[in-house]
């Protein structure tokens, strides 16, 4: 099941390879079918998932599989290394509450990304091959339970992303693409060293051999190799490893001060890639922290909770202030992403169930809401070929449906009660306020909500309300590439959302509203896993060991 959901897009990519590049429609349809099939599988996984099993670590009695579900475990590589025993890498997939929500999110956003890619005209074949490769790698990251496998998926994502931004991106795409590539690679190569070090520090209780299994690594008693670099007594090296991993993931989040690649990448990337980037890729950073960073080094996590919280607060406020200053709508949304990922960090730093559940829920909601925001930016860019906020005005009367969806998305993003963003942000703050360490940080972070409301409402007002901007907007012409010239006067009724765009946006709107009223479908899956995680991270468990 999980293998299928991971490799479906790659299979679709191989099919596309055989299709002649002139058959653009067939290529698109194959991709869409794969994405839909992925969606069906995600729903099946969701239905079949038993939310009472926690996952996270090895199960009772030290069963190596833990209480993960849909587990697939095969020996993949077994190397004889002479004096060092053997190198064992497993093809080990499985989900718990944390990953299952991300799997659903990934399937959803990938499918919407395919729909959004319909307008790509240049080198369609290459585009969809890379897109499918990316979709597979993302999904693989969320279900891999072997560090080596995780790392492979993690790195495979980089190359397609590089090309997707670099070939199909905006004018400054070369710079943005290589910046993205270098930043993320910089984070992940150090992760490689930590991964090797962890391998030599951990044994699997079931076999007594070294292992890359993240499940085994999440139990501290398995760090039982005397003199190993990350053995419990080597506090300094464990601190270093924690920081290295954290930075590697934080680059992806992206956390201040490693965020500078994100606005560039977003501004240059085509709309579907922005959607994927904001909707799924950023989540991989925080997911990595939850899956790898924290449970493997719980005592370091406890030491550094307030530092993570401070960085979260900086992200929230700094991102919001930057968004406030942007003239380009897409850049504003990009910075709003940075701000919203700050809430995730803040929730994680609280270290309690409320905060962590809030963080996870925020990841899910940010995925759906930001996907919506970027799609909406793409819609206006397709029509006007500009994203400058001050070029627009009074759009609501020209594109009423569009304006309505934008309003919902914008309000969801600023956390209006009744929409999903509110619940997750509220949970994050409940968690952060109830923890002694993060309470002062939470107090400061609340400011972020105010700034967030400011930039969102302000942009909404400037673009959609009031009168047409007489100086600029009248001159805007649609289709500056010379195809169709519809003057701005005549926008009314002609250029509102079309069926394809509605097909992308309506499901997201429905999810946002539904999860704002009744969050239990997602929260229910998260709770038992998060409780287990909090238990793993808490000092009580440590002292019992």
């Amino acid at each position: 099941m999980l293998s299928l959901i991971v490799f479906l897009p790659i299979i679709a990519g191989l099919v596309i390879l055989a299709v002649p590049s002139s058959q653009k429609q067939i290529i698109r349809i194959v991709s869409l079918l794969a994405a839909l099939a992925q969606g069906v599988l995600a729903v099946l996984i969701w239905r079949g998932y038993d939310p009472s099993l926690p996952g996270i670590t090895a199960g009772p009695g030290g069963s190596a599989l833990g209480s993960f579900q849909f587990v697939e475990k095969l020996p993949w590589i077994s190397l004889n290394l002479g004096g060092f025993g053997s190198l064992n890498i497993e093809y080990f997939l499985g989900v718990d509450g944390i990953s299952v929500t991300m799997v659903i999110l990934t399937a959803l956003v990938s499918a919407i990304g395919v729909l959004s890619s319909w307008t790509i005209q240049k080198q369609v074949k290459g585009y969809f091959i890379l897109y499918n490769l990316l979709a597979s790698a993302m999904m693989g990251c969320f279900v891999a339970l072997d560090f080596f496998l995780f790392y492979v998926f993690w790195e495979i994502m980089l190359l397609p992303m590089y090309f997707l931004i670099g070939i199909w991106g905006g004018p400054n795409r070369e710079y943005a693409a290589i910046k993205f590539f270098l930043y993320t690679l910089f984070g992940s190569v150090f992760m490689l060293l930590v991964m090797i070090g962890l391998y030599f520090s951990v044994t699997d209780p079931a076999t007594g051999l070294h292992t890359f299994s993240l499940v085994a690594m999440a139990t501290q008693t398995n760090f039982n190799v005397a003199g190993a670099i990350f053995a419990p007594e080597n506090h300094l090296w464990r601190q270093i490893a924690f920081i290295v991993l954290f930075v590697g993931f934080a680059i992806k989040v992206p956390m201040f001060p490693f965020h500078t690649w994100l606005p560039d990448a977003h501004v240059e990337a085509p709309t579907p890639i922005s959607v994927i980037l904001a909707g799924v890729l950023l989540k991989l950073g925080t997911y990595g922290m939850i899956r790898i960073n924290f449970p493997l080094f719980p005592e370091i996590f406890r030491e550094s909770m307030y530092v993570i919280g401070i960085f979260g607060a900086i992200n929230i406020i700094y991102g919001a202030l930057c968004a406030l200053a942007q003239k380009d709508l897409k850049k504003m949304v990009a910075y709003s992403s940075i701000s919203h990922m700050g809430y995730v960090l803040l929730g994680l730093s609280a270290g309690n169930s409320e905060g962590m559940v809030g963080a996870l829920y925020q990841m899910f909601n940010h995925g759906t809401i930001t996907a919506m925001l970027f799609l909406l930016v793409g819609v206006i860019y397709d029509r006007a070929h500009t994203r400058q906020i001050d070029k627009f005005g009074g759009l609501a009367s020209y594109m009423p449906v569009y304006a309505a969806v934008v309003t919902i998305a914008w309000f969801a993003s600023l956390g209006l009660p009744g929409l999903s963003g509110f619940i997750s942000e509220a949970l994050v703050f409940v968690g952060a306020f109830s923890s002694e360490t993060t309470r002062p940080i939470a107090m400061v972070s609340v400011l972020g909500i105010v700034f967030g409301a400011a930039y969102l409402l302000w942009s909404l007002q400037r673009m959609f309300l009031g009168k047409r901007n007489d100086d600029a907007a009248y001159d805007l012409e649609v289709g500056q590439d010379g195809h169709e010239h519809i003057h701005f006067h005549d926008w009314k009724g002609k250029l509102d959302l079309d069926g394809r765009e509605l097909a992308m946006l309506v499901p997201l709107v429905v999810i946002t509203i539904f999860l704002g009223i009744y969050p239990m479908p997602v929260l229910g899956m998260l709770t038992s896993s998060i409780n287990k995680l909090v238990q793993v991270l808490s000092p009580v468990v440590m002292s019992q060991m």
Partner: protein
Amino acid sequence: MFELPSGAEIQGIIASVQGSVGFFIPEIYLSALFMLLIVVDLVAKGRKNNLLAITTLVGLAGSTFFIYQQHGLPAGEIFFGMYVLDEFALFFKYFFVLSAIVAVVVTMADEQFDREVKSMGEYYALIVAMVIGMIMMASSADLIMIFLSMELVSFTGYILAGYFKRNARSSEAALKYLVYGAVSSGLMLYGFSLIYGITAQTNIIKISLELAAHGSDSLVMILATLLVLAGFGYKIGAVPFHFWSPDVYEGSPTPVTAYLSVASKAAGFALLMRFFYVAIPHAALPPEDKLGIDWLSLLMILSVASMIYGNVVALWQKNVKRLLAYSSIAHAGYLLLGILVMDQFGTQATLFYLLSYFIMNFGAFYVVILISNKTGSENLDDYRGLGRKMPLAGAALTVFLISLVGLPPTVGFIGKLMIFSALLTKGSLYIWIALVGIMTSVISLYYYMLIPLNMYLRESKQPDEKSMNLGMAPRIILAFLMILTLYFGLFFTPLSDFAKYSSAMFGITLQ
């Protein structure tokens, strides 16, 4: 004066030589092939066909049979300790024969040869001669033998580098190669003479016993080691003995560049490992009698300098062959990392890295040749827009370059993984040097990606959109190499087991 040996002694010598010949069959076979090629060239003179190349290919392929037969033979010394046969040497025999085969295949694809030279006669014979030399380098256990085999490799290398006689760059490359080569072998020979002066031995195993038993003046020993390192460093192209390589790599015919950068470098590594592991006791090795010298630190400096210099200077290169030359300097640095570990795993990692480097570097050079056939250029700027004109070549080159960076799922990633794992098994001792390796590989991403950047992200200056047909055979070979790079990136057990099997070296037991 010398006493003449008695009859019985001569009998004994003859018997010993006769016994040794049985362990020397692949080399004899290859020498026969070398002469056969000269004869074929004489007979088939003037005919423009691939007869010579095919003879070479078949002949080289045949030699693997004789090498395979040696697996059953016991490891040991032959020819009075001049030469050894062990798994380590067998590995390199396969390695060199295979790289010669690939070099011939690559040469057949290179159209520049049709333009520049009339006859290919000596070319293939020289390739085979170089194989013989390199095999002997990997199997030598005696200072004299080491020197002779190295000179054999160097001389054939000089001629091959200058094979385009009428091309000024090629001649310049040959001359530079020669001058640097002469100086460094002179230095190496001086180092050998110092070692002989200290120990009165030329066999490396006896040298190590002598040094362990009686010790030596450490100053002389360090000087001798440094001088020897100059010779080996020149062959592996490590900083600071690298000055020849960018010019030689750029000027030589591209198949020769590929051959030199893979095979000749590997031969240097084989020699370096055997010589230092066996001959010179290291201070850190038991028994800790403070007799050895710390050559590991020397190698460490070489390694760090190569990784940093090669990767940083490559950033500014505009010519793809030159870029790959600097990358090969950097890879020498990574390979040295595995040697530093000085245990079985480290050796295994180094050998594995050599195998991975073999696949990806030959692959990259092969694409460079195919592209230069069509465009006549190796400049980065002329690669613009080629990704669409030759999709397979573009995709394959991207895979090879990703592998050279060391990203999964390619064989280059596994190579780096093994090297770094070997370093980390020593605990925190080598972490800092692993960090240098990691950092520089991030730098390398930038310049390797310049090639796909030009191929895919930029439009070509000429507006013609017609695709360039590579022909069937190059396509199959390219696809094969690309799949190999990916396959061994996911299922590397066979390669790695082979590397482990080959890490057994006669005369020393690695832990």
